[in-house]
C-alpha cells in the first residue's frame, strides 16, 4: 500500500509535468487571441518527429534545442500564414486548424508510415524496488520533469518581470487597454504563438522519447489540453499548471488503484463536474478577453 502511494506520487508528478507543458501554450493562445488552436496537438507531434529524425544523426543535446526552435517557427508560421487572417472568425479558425492537424497526420503517414518512430533523449532507468517503490521510472521521465519546470520558470519570469512578457498577460485581460498603452497586438500574438510552439516542441520530444512517435499522437495531447484548460480556467497559465497536476494525479490514481484500462475515466468525471458547477475553472477570473 505504502509502496503504491509512493509510486503514485512519483509517476503522477512526472506525468503531470509533461501535461503542464502540453497545456500552457494552448491556454496562452486562447487567452491572448481568443483562438482555439486545434493544431496544437499536431505541433506537439511535429516536435516528436523532428526530434526523432534529428536524433538519428545528431547528439540528443544538439537535436533538442534545434527541435524546439523548429517547432516554435512552425507555430509562428502557422499563425502568420493561416490563423492571423481568419482569427476573427471562431468557426473558421476551428476548422482551419483541425484541417492542419489532419493534414499533418497524412504527411507523416506518407513520409514515415504508421509504425511508431522510436527515439532516445536519455536512456536508462532507475530501480527503486530496494526503496520499497514498485516502479522503474526511466531517466527520461525525470528529465521531462526538469524540462517542464525550467520552462515554466522561464515563462513565469518573462510574463511577470519583463515589459514584453507582461504585455502578453495584459493583452489577455484587455485588448483595448493594451492598445492604449502602446502594445502592438500583432506582435504580442506572434510572440505567443512562438512561445506556445517552443513549449509544444518540448512536450513532443518528451512524449516521443517515452512512447515513440505515431501519426495520431496529436489527439490525446489535444484532448488533455482542452480538459486542463477547462479545469484550470480558460486563459490562465497558473490554472493550467495546477490543472495539469490534478489531471495527472487523477489518471495515475486510477491506474494504480483501479487498472490501466480506466486511466481517463476519473478525470473525465471531474471535467464534467467542472463544466456543470464551475465552468469558469479554478482560476477563470484571470480570463477577461474583450
Amino acid at each position, binding site marked *: 500500500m505504502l509502496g503504491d502511494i509512493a509510486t503514485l506520487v512519483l509517476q503522477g508528478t512526472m506525468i503531470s509535468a509533461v501535461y503542464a507543458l502540453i497545456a500552457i501554450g494552448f491556454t496562452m493562445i486562447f487567452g491572448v487571441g481568443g483562438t482555439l488552436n486545434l493544431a496544437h496537438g499536431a505541433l506537439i507531434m511535429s516536435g516528436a518527429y523532428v526530434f526523432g529524425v534529428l536524433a538519428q544523426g545528431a547528439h540528443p543535446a544538439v537535436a533538442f534545442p534545434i527541435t524546439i526552435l523548429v517547432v516554435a517557427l512552425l507555430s509562428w508560421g502557422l499563425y502568420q500564414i493561416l490563423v492571423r487572417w481568419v482569427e476573427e472568425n471562431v468557426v473558421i479558425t476551428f476548422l482551419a486548424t483541425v484541417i492542419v492537424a489532419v493534414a499533418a497526420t497524412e504527411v507523416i503517414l506518407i513520409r514515415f508510415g504508421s509504425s511508431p518512430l522510436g527515439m532516445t533523449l536519455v536512456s536508462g532507468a532507475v530501480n527503486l524496488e530496494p526503496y520499497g517503490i514498485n516502479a522503474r521510472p526511466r531517466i527520461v521521465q525525470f528529465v521531462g520533469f526538469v524540462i517542464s519546470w525550467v520552462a515554466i520558470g522561464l515563462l513565469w519570469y518573462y510574463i511577470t518581470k519583463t515589459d514584453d512578457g*507582461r504585455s502578453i498577460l*495584459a493583452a489577455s485581460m484587455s485588448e483595448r487597454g493594451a492598445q492604449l*498603452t*502602446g502594445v502592438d497586438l500583432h506582435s504580442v500574438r506572434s510572440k505567443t504563438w512562438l512561445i506556445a510552439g517552443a513549449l509544444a516542441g518540448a512536450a513532443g520530444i518528451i512524449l516521443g522519447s517515452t512512447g515513440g512517435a505515431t501519426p495520431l499522437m496529436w489527439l490525446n495531447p489535444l484532448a488533455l489540453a482542452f480538459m486542463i484548460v477547462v479545469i484550470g480556467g480558460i486563459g490562465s497559465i497558473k490554472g493550467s499548471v495546477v490543472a495539469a497536476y490534478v489531471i495527472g494525479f487523477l489518471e495515475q490514481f486510477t491506474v494504480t488503484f483501479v487498472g490501466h484500462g480506466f486511466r481517463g475515466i476519473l478525470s473525465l468525471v471531474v471535467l464534467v463536474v467542472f463544466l456543470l458547477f464551475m465552468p469558469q475553472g479554478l482560476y477563470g*477570473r484571470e480570463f477577461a478577453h474583450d
Partner: protein
Amino acid sequence: MTDAILEIDDLDVYYGKSHALKGVSLSIGEGEIYGVIGPNGAGKTTMLNAIAGFVDYDGTVRYDGTDLAAVRPQRIVRDGLVYCTEDRDLFPYFSVHENLLMGAQFRDDRDGVRADLDMVYELFPRLDERREQEAETMSGGEQQMLAVGRALMSGPDVLMLDEPTLGLAPVIIQDIGAALETLQAQTGLTILLAEQNATFALTHADRLSLIETGEIELSGTHGEFHDNEYVREAYVGVH
C-alpha cells in the same frame, strides 16, 4: 496663442448611415487645457476615438505636424498622444503598480520611468497606498486616478481624457481637477478634456468647444463660455 500641437480639420465619422461627426475642426495649443462639452451622444467620444485611430474618419488629424491618417494606434501612443477612455480599460487583475508599469512598457529610459512613477504616486497618494491592490477591486474614483496615472506613465505630450468625472463623488472630482491643473502647471502637459460635466470643464479649461449632434456649435475662451447665456442655461445650470 502658442502653436497648435493637435489640429483637427473637417472631421467626419459615419457609423453605417448615421453621421456621428459632421465636419468638426479644432485646434489645440501646446500646454493648454481644452474642454469639449456637450450632451451624451453628441460625438465627443467618437472624436477622441478618431484621433486615437480607433475609428475610420474623413478629414485630417495633425499631431505635432504629422498627419495621423496612416499612423497605427500604438505608434500614436508612443509618439506621446495618449488616450484615457471613458471605460478606463484598465488591466483588472494587475495591481496598481503593474498597471502603471504597463503604461511605460514601450519606454527604454529606466530613470525616466522611475521618475514618472514617483511623480504619479505623488500626484495621487491614494494610488501610493494601494500599490499592490488589484485594479478591479478599487473604487471608481481610484480606478479613474489609476487610468490617468497609467496614461501619464506613457510620457504624454498630449493627454486625451474622456469623461474623467463620470459617476465620481465631488471630493474625488476635486482631486482629479487639482491633478490636471498641477500637471499643466508643472509639466506643460496639453490636455484635451471631453466632459458632460460642463461645470468641471469650465472650471479647468482655458478654451472650450460645445458639440451637439456631431457639430461644433460654439468655440471660445473660458471667459466667453462663462458669460454665454445659452451655455449657462443649458449646460451649467444653477445647482
